[in-house]
């Protein structure tokens, strides 16, 4: 009381001595883990090379030609595919088809509304990841629209959007060379952890996102950020590719279920 009164008269204020304690503690803990190079438990109880359980489904949007829903832990994504339909009038003439991708976030996608900031490039990256697989010459002069909506952002958003979009394209019956699945890994010191959550993404030293066509064994997109050393990159990409193949089996299963249900 007296301290407060004194502070008021002095026209100043003092922060609590314990401010940032929690953050420091967390950082310290992480540093300890990194120094020990131990397999520390992840927040959701996974080990480093465990992916979150993938829940995927086709056909949530009935108005679209094809659609898919994906839920990986907290991350929830819905993708709708429209077309092939007539290209917009303003566009230039083209002999091949076009792929138009758009990624958007709901206002409630993050715990604090309006927190989503640096995801402007996701639309372009989704396009790059998918354009290698869609047979654009099959539908000249027309456009296929891919609209991805992130309902809840819980980490590894882009890889999940890519996998979900490829499932939606397959659901729409768009001709494709192969399904594309994508998985990302984060680097923490010497450790590589797969399918990071948003907390882990916030703390990572670097990340790699791989979009992969498992049947053709081709990578359609590779994004590397942060610090990586040679040996670790190879290891991380191989890890991603293996995870992509396994995720692709889930996608194929979903498509086969939907096909046999339709009969």
């Amino acid at each position, binding site marked *: 009381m007296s301290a407060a009164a004194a502070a008021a008269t002095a026209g100043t204020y003092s922060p609590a001595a314990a401010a940032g304690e929690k953050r420091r503690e967390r950082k310290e803990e992480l540093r300890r883990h990194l120094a020990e190079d131990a397999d520390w438990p992840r927040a959701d109880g996974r080990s480093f090379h465990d992916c979150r359980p993938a829940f995927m489904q086709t056909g949530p949007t009935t108005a679209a030609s094809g659609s898919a829903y994906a839920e990986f832990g907290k991350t929830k994504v819905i993708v709708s595919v429209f077309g092939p339909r007539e290209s917009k009038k303003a566009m230039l003439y083209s002999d091949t088809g076009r792929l138009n991708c758009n990624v958007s976030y709901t206002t409630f996608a993050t715990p604090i509304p309006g927190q989503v900031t640096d995801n402007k490039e996701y639309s372009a990256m989704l396009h790059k990841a998918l354009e290698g697989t869609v047979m654009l010459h099959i*539908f000249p002069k027309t456009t296929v629209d891919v609209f991805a909506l992130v309902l809840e952002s819980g980490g590894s958003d882009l890889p999940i959007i890519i996998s979900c979009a490829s499932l939606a394209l397959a659901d729409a019956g768009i*001709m*494709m060379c192969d399904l594309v699945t994508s998985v990302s890994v984060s680097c923490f010191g010497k450790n590589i952890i797969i399918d990071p959550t948003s907390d882990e993404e916030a703390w990572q030293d670097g990340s790699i996102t791989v979009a992969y066509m498992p049947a053709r064994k081709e990578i359609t997109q590779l994004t590397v950020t942060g610090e990586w050393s040679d040996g670790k990159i190879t290891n991380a990409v191989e890890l991603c590719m293996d995870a992509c193949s396994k995720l692709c089996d889930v996608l194929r299963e979903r498509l086969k279920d939907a*096909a046999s249900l339709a009969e």
Partner: protein
Amino acid sequence: MEHDGGEVVTPGELLGNSLSLLVGRGAYADGRCVRASITGHRRLVPPPSGSTDQRSTVEVVGHKAHGAVPQPGSVVIARVTKVMARMASADIMCVDSKAVKEKFTGMIRQQDVRATEIDKVDMYQSYRPGDIVRALLSLGDARAYYLSTAQNELGVVSAQSITGRFMMAYNVLTNDAGSSCVYQKLCDAQAHVATGFRILNDVGEGFALLLRLRYN
């Protein structure tokens, strides 16, 4: 030879080797591999008897494929929506007997209405809004597909009079003069007896068919 398994395949799945299989619908060749490009049932079609190629064709059918897309060179059925002095717009409804799901706009230019005397074509006497037209499609420009009716078997296949009744095609040469005549670029009816239209006399060159559309 392999049997018709009928199992469901998904895009990218291996269907077989291109040395033993030919690529059909919903499949593509990737080097020596034949892979599926859509989700559906795998089907083997044996080679036609007497063909030198003994390979059977593998195709993926059954599950939903995307709607028909206008391809250059395909014959389409379109409904005329707007007639202008130099061109007519039409909405494409069918591509090669398959209905389209999305809206595609076609354009019939004055020079594409018939094969000869193309500078004397009067658009208003060739088409009227609501006419159903059989036309040949080309990719056209950025705005629309170009439709051409400059062939005997192309043109109006179905029309309604102002009173809303179906019209039938008659050649004015075999009919009495003096009745109200309508000039239209009509489709050669031989191919379309099923649609209920007939042309009593084909002018031969198949252009500027002077026809009277009489109330049915």
